[in-house]
């Protein structure tokens, strides 16, 4: 659901920027693949909607796009190119950075591996700690 919201918002911003009518394509140049690799959100979107990623890249790499209005107030190291794109539109900047932060947090939440183990063990530890606390409170009874 969260990714759908992000994709919809990106599509809306593309309309505002006038790139919504670009022809759909799903193949990427080496340069574009490098940009995708640098930006977490583009990596995530590429699997679900490669055509949308292509439109974002067209907008990003469009030499006729206007100069940057302002540098982003925070540098997003996980999506540096998207942050730069956002800076071209003063209105979009804040929303973009917030979306990117949100997407990153969401990605982290769904990650498996250590996170799952951490949860299960952490839970058991917490329960044990609470029992011990009650025991201490009641004087070891």
């Amino acid at each position: 659901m969260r990714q759908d919201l992000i994709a919809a918002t990106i599509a809306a911003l593309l309309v505002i920027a006038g790139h919504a009518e670009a022809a759909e394509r799903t193949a990427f140049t080496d340069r574009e693949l490098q940009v995708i690799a640098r930006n977490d959100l583009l990596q995530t979107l590429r699997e679900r909607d490669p055509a949308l990623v292509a439109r974002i890249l067209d907008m990003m790499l469009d030499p006729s796009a206007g100069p940057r209005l302002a540098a982003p107030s925070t540098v997003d190291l996980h999506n540096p190119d998207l942050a730069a794109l956002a800076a071209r539109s003063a209105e979009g900047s804040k929303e973009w950075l917030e979306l990117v932060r949100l997407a990153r947090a969401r990605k982290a939440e769904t990650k498996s591996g250590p996170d799952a183990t951490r949860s299960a063990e952490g839970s058991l530890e917490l329960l044990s700690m609470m029992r011990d606390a009650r025991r201490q409170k009641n004087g070891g009874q």
Partner: protein
Amino acid sequence: MNSDLDKDFATLELMSRARHSFIECLVERSESRDEADVLSYLRLDKMFEFAEFFYTIRAMGLTDPGDVAILADLHNGRIARLMRDRAALDRRGLKQERLLDSMFTIDVLPRLEMIWNEQPGALDQSNLGRLLVTQMSAETVRGIAVATEKAGFIRRRRHPTGAIVITSLGVMEDVMGSCLRTMRCTIADL
């Protein structure tokens, strides 16, 4: 239903149903219907652990002034043990530096106790993050706290010290308690 396997399967079903029921009850009780900023958080696995924390405080009767000092001491002990267990740190994806920051030291303890003693059960957000350090990031704690405030499950307020103080309003505990009781009683009848 006779065979052990049938009962085992029924138990598994009950556990899954309880988990699902927990989420659906929280969503139902939410005062906000905002899917993106509230309901999606209530459906997170971490939401269960967030609610579990407050439920266990209530269930163990740790609701008196002074109880937080016991919790802080036990927390420091488990963190110290964990920091000496390299294998556990790796397995659970925990960093020593972050665990060290989560301990209640002489500069952090006074505020923890003051806020709790003013209203037992109240914790400032950063200290809640310390207690949940082995289970979720500070960012997740903040995200869930903001969502559950909008859902009407907790209250968040600015303390005169500048800290964001969280007080549970009991909804999460009620829902979890109800789900657990239903599951327990149904399992007992198998």
